[in-house]
C-alpha cells in the first residue's frame, strides 16, 4: 500500500509519517500543494492524505482538480477548520473523508484503513456478513450466532452491520457516530460505549468466545480472536 501525505507543517507531518510507517505503510511526503498535486496525478498511490490549508494550492482545490482529471484515488482531508460547514465543503469538493485537527493518531489510522479497504474491495453490496459463528443476513435482516437467532433493534442491527463491514479492523467512536447515526459532532457523553455494551449483551453474552472487543484508546473491533492470533 502506497500513501501520499501532503502537509506543510513539518513537525506534524513527521508524526503522521512515523505512525503510518510503524503501522506498515509506505508513505511519501510533499510539503507543497502544487508539488503534491503533480505527485497525486501520477496515479501510483492508493490513498492521498492532504492538509486543507497548503502553500500554493488549497487542499480542496487540489481534490477538485484531481476529480476533474478523473483520478479516483481516495482522499482524506485533514483540516484545522472543523465546523459543520467546513466539513460539508470538504466532502462536496470530492474528498472521501474529513478529519479535524488535532486528531488522535488511532482515529487517523482507523480511517486510513477503512478508506483503503473500500478501494480494494469492489464488492460493496454483499448480502451476508460473517465473523466466526456470527452471521448477518442483510436481505432478511436476521442475525444468527451459532445457529441461534439474535433479536436486535433496528439501530443495534445497523451498529453490528457497521462493525461487520469493517470486520478485523478498528472502528472509532466518531466513525460509528458518523456511519450509524449520521452525526458529525462529538457528544460530550460516552454514548457509543453505552450502545456498544448493549450490543455486546445481545451478541456475546452466553458465548465462551466474545467477538466484539474494545481497543484501548481507539475504539472497537469485531473479530475472531483465535483466528487473528
Amino acid at each position, binding site marked *: 500500500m502506497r500513501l501520499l501525505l501532503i502537509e506543510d507543517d513539518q513537525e506534524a507531518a513527521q*508524526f503522521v509519517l512515523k505512525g503510518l510507517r510503524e503501522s506498515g505503510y509506505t508513505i511519501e511526503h510533499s510539503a507543497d500543494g502544487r508539488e503534491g498535486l503533480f505527485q497525486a496525478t501520477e496515479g501510483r498511490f492508493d490513498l492521498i492524505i492532504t492538509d486543507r490549508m497548503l502553500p500554493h494550492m488549497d487542499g480542496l482545490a487540489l481534490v477538485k482538480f484531481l476529480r476533474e482529471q478523473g483520478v479516483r484515488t481516495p482522499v482524506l482531508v485533514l483540516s484545522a477548520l472543523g465546523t459543520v460547514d467546513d466539513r460539508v465543503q470538504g466532502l462536496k469538493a470530492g474528498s472521501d473523508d474529513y478529519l479535524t485537527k*488535532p486528531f488522535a493518531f488511532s482515529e487517523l489510522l482507523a480511517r486510513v484503513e477503512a478508506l483503503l479497504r473500500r478501494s480494494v474491495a469492489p464488492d460493496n453490496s454483499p448480502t451476508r456478513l460473517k465473523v466466526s459463528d456470527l452471521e448477518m443476513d442483510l436481505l432478511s435482516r436476521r442475525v444468527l450466532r451459532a445457529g441461534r437467532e439474535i433479536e436486535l433493534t433496528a439501530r443495534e442491527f445497523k451498529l453490528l452491520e457497521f462493525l461487520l463491514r469493517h470486520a478485523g479492523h478498528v472502528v472509532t467512536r466518531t466513525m460509528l457516530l458518523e456511519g450509524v447515526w449520521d452525526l458529525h459532532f*462529538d457528544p460530550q457523553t460516552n454514548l457509543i460505549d453505552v450502545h456498544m455494551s448493549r450490543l455486546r449483551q445481545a451478541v456475546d453474552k452466553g458465548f465462551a468466545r466474545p467477538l466484539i472487543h474494545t481497543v484501548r484508546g481507539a475504539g472497537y473491533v469485531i473479530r475472531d480472536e483465535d483466528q487473528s492470533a
Partner: protein
Amino acid sequence: MKINPLRTSAFRLALGYGVIFTFGVSALLVSIYLLTKTVLNNEIDAVIAAELEGLTDEYNRFGLNGLADELTWRTDSWGRTGAVYLLVDSHLAKVGGNLLGWPFAGIPRGRWSEFYLDARGTNDEQVRHPVRASVSLLPDGHRLLVGMDVNQERGFVSTFRTATLWGIGLTALVGVLAGSWLSRGLTRRVQSVAETCDAIVGGDLSRRMLVTGARDEFDALAQAVNFMVDRLAEKTQLLRATFDSAAHDLRAPLYRLRGRLEDTLRDPNADQSVRERIDASLQELDHVQRTLSTLLEIAQAESAISVAHSTPVDLGELASDMAELYEPAARQRQLQLTVRKDTRCEVRGNRQLLAQLLANLVENSLKYVPAGGHIDVEVEQAGAGSRLIVADSGPGIPESERSHVLQPFVRLPSAAASTAGTGLGLSLVAAIARLHHAQLALEDNAPGLRVVLSFGSV
C-alpha cells in the same frame, strides 16, 4: 414577501391622482356645457324680446288691426323658422297668429314661459316641440304671445350634455387604467427589490439589486442597497477569514502537542507512570479541543446571516433519532427520556447543527436532572411553524439567571462546582437557534427547565 397590489402606496397615489384628474376634467367640461347652454338661451330670449318689442311698436302705431295684419303677413310670408305668434283678447280667445289656441291653463307668471307644441316632423310624423315664449299685455286688454320653437337648440344642448358625461367617464377610465399600469410597474420593481433582499437575508450574499441605468430613484435605492450588501459580504468574508486563521493558528500547536504526546505514549521504553501522566494530559487536551471547537462553531454561527447548506429537516424524526441515541445514557442515570411529536414538523436548516442543538439540550438535562427524573422532548406544530421543546425535572434556572446563561462561559454557581462542562452548551444552542431564525425561550417547567424553540414557517 408578496406585495398585495391593492395595498401599495403606488396604487393609492395613482388612485388619488386619478380622482383629482377626473374631478378637474369634469369641472372644465361641465362649465363649458353650462356656459354654452346659457349663451344659447340668452340668444333665443334676445330674439323673442326684440320681436315682441317690434310688434308692440306696430300696435302702438296702427292699433289692433295693424298688429293682426302684421302677424298674418309675418306668418304667411317671411316669418323666421320656428316663430310662434298668438294674439288673444281679454278672454284668451284667438284674434290672430299661427297658434291654434292659448297654450296655457291660465295667465303665466314671469316673463318667460315654455310649452309644448304638436307639430309635423319631416317624415310627417307627430312630434312635440318645446317652445319658449314671452307674453305681453296690450293696453286694451289683448295679449300678444311671441315664442320660438327651441327643439333644435334643446337637441344640441342634450347632445352636448351626453358628450360631456362621456368625456368625464372616459377620463376616469383612462385615469384608472394609466394609474394601475403605472402602479403595477412600480410595484413590480419594489417586489423585485423585496425578493432580492429576502434572498440576501436568506444567506445568498452574491445577489444584487438590478440597476436599470435609468438613473431614477429606484436605481439610487438599488445602488445604496448593493453598496450595503457589498460591505456586508466583505465583512462576512473578513470575519470568516479571521475565524479560519484563528482556527488554524490555535489548532496547529495543539496538533503538534498531541503528536508529541502520542509519540511518547507509543515509545515502548516509556514507563507506566509516564504513560498515566500523558493519558491525563491527553484528556485535558481533549477538553481544550472541545471547547475550542464549540467556540469556533458559535463564532461561525453568530457571524453568518443564515444557514449555509440548508435542507428540509423533519424535526420529529430528528428528535426520535437523538432520543434513541441518548436513551441508554439516560437509563444509565436512571432518567426517563421520552419523545412526543406531531407528524410533519419540517423546518429548513442544517441537520447537523440542529442535531447538535438538541444534543446540547439533552446533555444539559442529563447533567443536571437527579436520578429518578425525566426529560421530555416534544415537537409540535405551532401556527405556521413548529416548536421544539426540551423539558426536564431538574433544578431549572432561576428567572434572574435565564437571560445570561445563554452567554458564553456563564455557568450557574451550583453547576460549576459539581459537573464538568465547557459552559458553552447553551451559547451554541442560542447561536444555532438564531442562525435558523428560531426564537429561543427558557421557561419554568415547575419544577425544572423548559427550553422552547419556535421555528417560523418553512
